[in-house]
């Protein structure tokens, strides 16, 4: 966690806003001066005052994660002003669906092997495991409309803007999984 509210180096937010970076600046721990684009994106999409309100509503130990997720969303929105992160969610959900179908078909083949070609005395093939999403009550994003059950539901049916989208979460600040990315709306983020 970088702290930039020193006398000589204002944080990226105060630099952007052209104001003095005071000790205790709420942005300073999360927007180091070496990453000006991070705050620029967040400011463009959310605005400094909205980010301040959000951070004030969050426990201090969670603020860094919150800022990083906001920066991630802001970058996604800058690259794709229409769909932002939701485009990636749609793409990834399609991948999950495709893989699940492939896994179902492969498991069906295995069952056929077990029933038709393997003598009855053989042990049950224990490797057949359907995908069971982890039950995390804090992540019931599928219920954001208050309906349905289960861990996750498909996001709203947006048109899929990416034919061959290579999803790669940006590694901005080294805080995100996956490698870095570049490009415009149809490319890596």
């Amino acid at each position: 966690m970088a702290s930039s509210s020193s006398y000589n180096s204002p944080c990226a937010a105060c630099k952007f806003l052209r104001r003095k970076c005071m000790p205790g600046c709420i942005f300073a721990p999360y927007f180091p001066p070496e990453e000006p684009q991070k705050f620029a994106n967040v400011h463009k999409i959310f605005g400094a005052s909205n980010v301040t309100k959000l951070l004030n509503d969050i426990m201090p130990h969670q603020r860094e994660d919150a800022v990083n997720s906001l920066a991630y969303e802001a970058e996604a929105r800058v690259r794709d002003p229409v769909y932002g992160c939701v485009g990636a969610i749609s793409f990834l959900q399609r991948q999950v669906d495709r893989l699940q179908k492939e896994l179902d078909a492969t498991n069906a083949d295995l069952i056929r092997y077990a029933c038709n070609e393997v003598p009855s005395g053989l042990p049950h093939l224990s490797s057949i495991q359907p995908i069971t999403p982890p039950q995390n009550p804090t992540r019931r994003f599928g219920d954001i409309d208050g309906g349905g059950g289960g861990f996750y539901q498909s996001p709203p049916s947006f048109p899929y803007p990416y034919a061959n989208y290579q999803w790669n979460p940006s590694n901005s600040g080294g805080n995100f999984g996956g490698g870095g990315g570049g490009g415009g709306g149809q490319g890596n983020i």
Partner: protein
Amino acid sequence: MHRFHKLDKMTSTRCAVCKYFRRRCPPDCIFAPYFPNDNPQRFTCVHRFYGASNIGKMLEEMPVQLRADAVESLYYEAKCRIQDPVYGCVGIITSLHRQIQIAQSQLAKAQAEISFLDANFVGVEPTSSLSESLVQQNGVEHDLDDPFSTWFY
């Protein structure tokens, strides 16, 4: 009378945004098609994180035919952020990546088993040697790889 009639007309046709800001809703209001006055919660949700000014700028910068989708996606992200103030919809992306990793791992294992069965079933009599092979294979713990230790670090 005419003044009250005009006021009623203005009030009843204001979009949710102009109603929120208690201002006149012009005929070419950029928000009106996407924030009808019968759904004020939609705007308050989006306004909470993005602000009306930023939303207006975003809409102005994109073609008209894409604005409806843009507002829907902003609304979706805002709802995710309300539900999870720390991670928002980025948490969903993390979960999906995890699901994909798990599915790929399971698929690879299942395909490996099929390849093994293919190789062993061709011209092989159903003898105890085959059952021993399968017992050996299935006696191994099929632990899934740990998809993520920590997302951010």
